[in-house]
């Protein structure tokens, strides 16, 4: 906490509406830029499944891909049950990848 904001808290002075506006705007713009179209998410899911299945046997239907928004940032969250690891030949997967 900066000295300035500490003083403000002690005085219990509300933020000016100008500063509120600026902060809201900054957050809104960040969110706007993180917005992802549904079809893009579907394409990504397909690509990811393709890569993961090279290494693991997974339950495709149970896989979920989601974007979680937190204050000021976003996270891409992939959740999938693993049925089994694939045992691959030495170097084979690398060449494939």
């Amino acid at each position, binding site marked *: 906490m900066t000295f300035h904001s500490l003083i403000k808290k002690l005085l219990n002075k509300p933020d*000016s*509406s*100008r*500063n509120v*506006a*600026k902060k*809201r*705007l*900054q957050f*809104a*713009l960040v969110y*706007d830029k993180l917005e992802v179209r549904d079809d893009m998410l579907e394409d990504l899911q397909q690509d990811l499944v393709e890569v993961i299945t090279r290494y693991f046997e997974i339950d495709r239907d149970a896989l979920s891909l989601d974007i979680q928004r937190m204050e000021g940032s976003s996270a891409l969250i992939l959740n999938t049950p693993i049925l089994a690891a694939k045992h691959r030949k030495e170097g084979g997967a690398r060449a494939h990848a």
Partner: protein
Amino acid sequence: MDGKVIVVTSGKGGVGKTTVTASVGAALAKQGKRVAVLDMDIGLRNLDVVMGLENRIVFDVVDVIQGRCKLRQAALKDRRIENLYLIPASQSDEKSVIKPQNMTWLCNKLRREYDFALLDCPAGIEQGFKNAIEAADEAIVVCTPEVSSVRDADRVIGLLYARSITPRLIVNRIVPKLVEKGDMLSHADVVDVLSIDLLGLVEMDDAVVVSSNTGNPLVQQKDSRAGMAFNRVAMRLDGHPDLPVEDPMAGRSFWQKVGKKLGRKDRTAKR
């Protein structure tokens, strides 16, 4: 002639695109340039009434594009300001009658005929917007110091960058008293959020309402702060790119001397 086509856009409606187009166009013409202002809001024409030329319309921009008349026939000459021409929008057509390739053709014609062509873009980011930015050389983004307007401006700026156009910003309707009180975003806040070059700062001014009531050009009203701000925008577009942007917040007491004080350091806005 090898003129410039500049699109005036904002995303959000009602922030002053038409006022900016009419005023900057008139100011450029006063500086001796040959200027055309075009209303690209097909179906909802406005620029003609703001400029007081609504009674003289014969042909419109759709007539030009569909070959029913020549560009010069559609260009209404302003009788008060030399070298200023209005090409009105059609009131009966829809935005979809104009295709992007029509705009490329039209803008090429405009560049040959005029020093500056200002396109008044419709609100929104649909077909009308896409048409207006299709073949433009430069872009002016207009916003007011409000959250909704700045957010829309950000979206439009992104779309312009995607078309390799680097826009410049006019912040319109600044109320210095409110900024001082901490109840309005300052132009510095807006520039900070949008990170874009500033082209002008325009104060809220009653003269704008009077001007649109009467159809008389704002830039000819001597004591209008907004009018003076638009004159300076025109200078920045034409020959004086480094003319400092005046800060409406600085030295508010000696506004009367504003004409003489052009370029004073302490009155210069943060860029």
